[in-house]
């Protein structure tokens, strides 16, 4: 594994007409980090994340994700990363196993790889007995854990999680975070957005976006010291209150 940052972007911007959704953001994410990408609703997080995932091309700037150019190699980036969207990304009217097979096919896994990873996923989630259950009938927390595992099927070097724990209860949220810790222990890099500020504390480093710009970036303990507050919640509020953009 190389020591180059897995994500490295400089002055990345995205404009929609006159509107600057993302305004010259620059940062590096080291391999094996849990990078928390925070910001208020409408700050530009999802737009930025879509550029990093190869789903949309930046208007200007430069950078790489998993070794590929964000300005022109979106298709290659897509194959190398995992992505779990804010909205649930599995098919409700397929079973657990059918969803795994579908995504394994999309990521180009062989049948043998698919079967081996399916067993691993079902065992780790203790889902064996649910393999033939329609995903639509699963509780939200289970769906989220399955969606995470499916995003990891092709063993990507970096996985992007867009509000994976929104609306999830405190116990299931913690179970989800243990999946994240396990993935990181196996060498995966995690890039995550969340509105739960206790989860910001679980990150190696966090950035906070306001009005399309990154206004703070660092280790949670350092940010709290810098803002002279006790919690990440207070750091976030201090910055987000100054937002000019009305969502």
């Amino acid at each position, binding site marked *: 594994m190389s020591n180059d940052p897995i994500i490295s972007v400089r002055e990345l911007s995205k404009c929609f007409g006159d509107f600057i959704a993302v305004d010259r953001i620059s940062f590096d994410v080291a391999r094996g980090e849990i990078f928390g990408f925070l*910001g*208020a*609703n*409408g700050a530009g997080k999802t737009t930025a994340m879509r550029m990093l995932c190869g789903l949309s091309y930046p208007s200007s700037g430069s950078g790489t994700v998993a070794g590929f150019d964000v300005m022109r190699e979106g298709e290659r980036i897509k194959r190398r990363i995992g992505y779990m969207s*804010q909205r649930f990304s599995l098919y409700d009217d397929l079973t657990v196993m059918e969803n795994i097979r579908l995504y394994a096919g999309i990521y180009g896994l062989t049948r043998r790889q698919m079967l081996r990873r399916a067993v691993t996923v079902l065992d780790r989630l203790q889902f064996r007995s649910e393999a033939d259950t329609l995903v639509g009938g699963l*509780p*939200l*927390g289970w769906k989220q854990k399955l969606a995470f595992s499916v995003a990891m099927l092709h063993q990507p070097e970096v996985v992007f999680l867009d*509000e994976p724990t*929104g*609306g*999830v*209860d*405190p*116990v*299931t949220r*913690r179970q989800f*975070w243990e999946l994240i*810790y396990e993935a*990181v*222990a196996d060498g995966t890099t995690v890039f995550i957005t969340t*509105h*739960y*500020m*206790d989860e910001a*504390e*679980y990150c190696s480093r966090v950035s906070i976006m306001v009005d399309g710009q990154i206004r703070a970036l660092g280790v*949670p*303990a350092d940010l709290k010291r810098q803002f002279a507050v006790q*919690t*990440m*919640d207070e750091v*976030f*509020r201090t910055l*987000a*209150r100054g*937002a000019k953009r009305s*969502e």
Partner: protein
Amino acid sequence: MEMNEAVVVEGLTKRYGALTALDGMSFCVGRGELFGLIGPDGAGKTTLFRLLTTLIDADGGRAAVDGFDIRKDYRLIRKRVGYMPGRFSLYPDLSVEENLAFFAALFGVSISDNYELIAPIYRQIEPFRTRRAGKLSGGMKQKLALCCALIHRPSVLFLDEPTTGVDAVSRGEFWEMLGQLKNRGISMLVSTPYMDEATRCDRVALCNEGRLLGVDTPQGIVSRFDAPLYALEGENMYGLLLETRKMPGVVACYPFGESHHLVGCEGFDPHRLVGELERMGFCGVSVRAVEPGIEDVFIKWMSHE
């Protein structure tokens, strides 16, 4: 039934085939009370909201809203309650003001009748009144949905996870709005996955698998936590978590923001734990006693289920 209660629920049961979504639930919401409902997905919260707003029928038990029976008097109840469902339920192709006019017409009122009630909220989205609701941001949709649920001046307001997916600052503003509505005498039943919001309620019910685990004031719920609780910190937090769980005397250990929370058994010796962990090679380990919060109680009760 009791006229002095906003909501009375007695042994309420609802089944979907083999699944019992609501299993003999009983509780009351007082007039003017801000009552919180917390529990995991599948606890029966949305089913409860749908029963109390008379959208579905119960299989057993009874309930009254604003003094009226949910089965017999459903027409009367529908005029008196406001409901903000978990999913965005406005018409995306209608503009902000068209949505509001539509909901006012449904209830046979005009917007001006109750404008002063919604004014503090509506003023924030008024600059966008000609924008289609589907094109609004999450926070603005939520404010419009609240206006539409309030336009007929309901006596009881039902809010199903109104702040899910909303950032910390907007959540705070939303709860300030609920506080103002409470001051206007509106009774509210609100579900939330955020434990910090539960502490802003007058009383809270914890539920799981269709049953109530307990109902109390936030302080009352916290006082039911009856085990020694500690905050554990050190380097390599994930390793610390896994190893601490295996230690004798440790009932539970879970991540809690910048530290881990550790529930000890009776007579638990924190100094001994630190010694053990340091012998195993963990650096900078510290353990200190902390006061529990609602989140700790929720985790404890859920793990006993």
